[in-house]
């Protein structure tokens, strides 16, 4: 029973944070220097379109009234018209979301698989030369600008060796009737490899260091010593007891890492011209396409906030000391 109460509590916090970010976004765009109307109306729109948008978003009304309308529109998914593409912002960003998510999750899965195994291994080989080389190396990957790493991989594997395409998600001219068809086509993997690898190299540092430091802590615990005194095999002691406990916080950090990774995507998608939300946001800002900027930012923020909530719930769910309080 207490577990449900905690979950409800967290969900309430989720709604509160989401509402706050939405409000911040609203204020930022309304209080921006220059003409607040520009937040939704581009001079090149036809007069009728301008009137329609003016009414729809109550741009001539006082601020707080606009805010109420804004929230109302938001709930119905109404985010206004993109200046450049002349189509509803909502539809456009929804279609781009899967590209970003597949890039984020594929790279994170590689990063976490490698990080957890390497972290556990490094903890086991505490104080060895392997550790003295590996840990600084990992730190360097944490100090690397992701887009620069992308540039180097592109220069080597694409332009020099030609193993991988230079960008995008499919060769020019080919078309797929659905996203699923695209994602499952063999060719797509060749496009996904470099950007996913770039993000994976950067983000594997976190699970690796987290797993390593947790393992070192857990190995000192009494129940690990007791496992050895019981005569259990080293494998059982290290994997079944030490790693199982050390894994707990690493798994919860996965959800938060998705939030952080979404930020990394912004630049990596630009380097690999990967049609995701990040690149869309960058192009929209360059083109001062404000409704699209709002929409893209909002969707990224929602995924980040959702992931923070998932991390909380995961933490409670995974650790019996919380779930069976």
């Amino acid at each position, binding site marked *: 029973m207490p577990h449900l109460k905690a979950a409800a509590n967290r969900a309430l916090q989720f709604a509160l944070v989401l509402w706050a970010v939405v409000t911040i976004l609203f204020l930022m765009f309304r209080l921006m220097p220059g003409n607040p109307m520009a937040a939704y109306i581009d001079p090149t729109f036809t007069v009728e379109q301008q009137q329609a948008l003016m009414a729809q978003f109550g741009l001539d009304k006082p601020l707080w009234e606009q805010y109420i309308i804004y929230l109302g529109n938001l709930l119905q998914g109404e985010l206004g018209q993109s200046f450049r593409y002349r189509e509803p912002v909502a539809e456009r960003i929804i279609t781009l979301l899967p590209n970003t998510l597949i890039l984020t999750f594929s790279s994170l899965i590689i990063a976490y698989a490698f990080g957890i195994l390497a972290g556990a291994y490094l903890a086991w080989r505490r104080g060895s030369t392997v550790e003295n080389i590996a840990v600084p190396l990992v730190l360097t990957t944490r100090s690397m600008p992701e887009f620069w790493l992308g540039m180097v991989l592109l220069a080597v594997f694409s332009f020099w060796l030609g193993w991988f395409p230079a960008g995008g998600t499919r060769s020019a001219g080919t078309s797929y009737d659905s996203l699923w068809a695209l994602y499952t086509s063999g060719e797509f993997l060749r496009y996904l490899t470099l950007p996913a690898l770039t993000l994976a190299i950067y983000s594997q540092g976190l699970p690796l260091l987290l797993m390593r430091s947790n393992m070192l802590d857990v190995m000192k615990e*009494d*129940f690990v010593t007791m496992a050895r*005194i019981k*005569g*259990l095999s080293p494998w059982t002691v290290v994997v079944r007891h030490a790693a*199982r406990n050390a894994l707990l916080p690493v798994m919860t950090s996965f959800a938060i890492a998705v939030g952080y990774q979404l930020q990394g995507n912004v630049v990596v998608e630009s380097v690999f011209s990967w049609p995701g939300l990040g690149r869309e946001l960058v192009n929209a800002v360059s083109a001062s396409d404000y409704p699209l900027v709002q929409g893209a930012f909002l969707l990224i923020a929602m995924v980040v906030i959702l992931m923070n909530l998932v991390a909380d719930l995961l933490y409670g769910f995974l650790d019996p000391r919380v779930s*069976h309080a």
Partner: protein
Amino acid sequence: MSETLLSVRDLKVNYRVGGGGIDAVDGATFDVPRGSIVGLVGESGCGKTTVARALTRVMADNARITGGQMLLEGTDIAAIPERQMNALRWRDIAFIPQSAMNSLDPVYTVEYQLSEVLRRRGGMGARQARTRSEELFDMVGIEKSRLRDYPHQFSGGMRQRVAIALALALNPKLVIADEPVTALDVIVQRQILDQLRELQTMLGISVILVTHDISVVAYICDMTVVMYAGRIVEAGPMKAVLTRPSHPYTMGLRNAFPDLAGAASGTLTPIEGAPPNLLEPPPGCRFAPRCPFALDICTKVSPPLRELEPGHRVACHRADEAAVLRELAAKTETWLAHA
């Protein structure tokens, strides 16, 4: 089978610290008769826990057995290879930790941790392990339904009962309990000690009880081994050692313990000073600097363990004057004059 289950002969354990090393145990010799409870008593840093952990051969990374023998029914478990030693673990030698709170894995149910030992170490099948687990919980007085609970759902006393059940899982010959009741309140402590005694006599196992509390030794132990600064200063039947202490340290310890049954205005006499720094231990008897009866020889030659009466051994140059020293030690001025 011989009357003694385990005899420890001149055991030495060294901790590597920085450049040098500390002889935390510097030549411990004592026997554990079959089917008896031996109290290993001493203050913090005297080496009692090091002896207990040495018997399991699972010690801190920087600790090594550097001398002596530990003969368990003739096998020297100080010397046998790791594989052979591991075969003995939990089947012959089991261990009860001080606070069971973090000695049980928090993410597994108690039943999982019991059956893990019964199946992996005891070779039992799933069903057989199940019935044995229930039997063990009955023995220690916990309802079977609680097998499915996690360690954090048990109170301090209940967790200690789980630890006892775990230790008795494979009917070991020897159970080493490292301060099993220190972290418990006095009523629960009494109930756990009674249970430990009851199970010990029923199963006929030998127990080494490591503690700093003489009253606990008086309550439950058959034999007593008193340690100070890595050495054994006195050992023998509990009644003899506690009623006729023959080493000044044992005498001093007894004065320092408040006695509820004693007179109200009894004064508590401290032993002034502090245990020696084992990095550079003083020559001769290590208790000499704090001992009110120390002679010149005490600071030069370390006294060997000599037998005063059958089974009652003392490491003190003035052991034969024990009766006289005991009278003097009972008076507070003896210790204060020395301070």
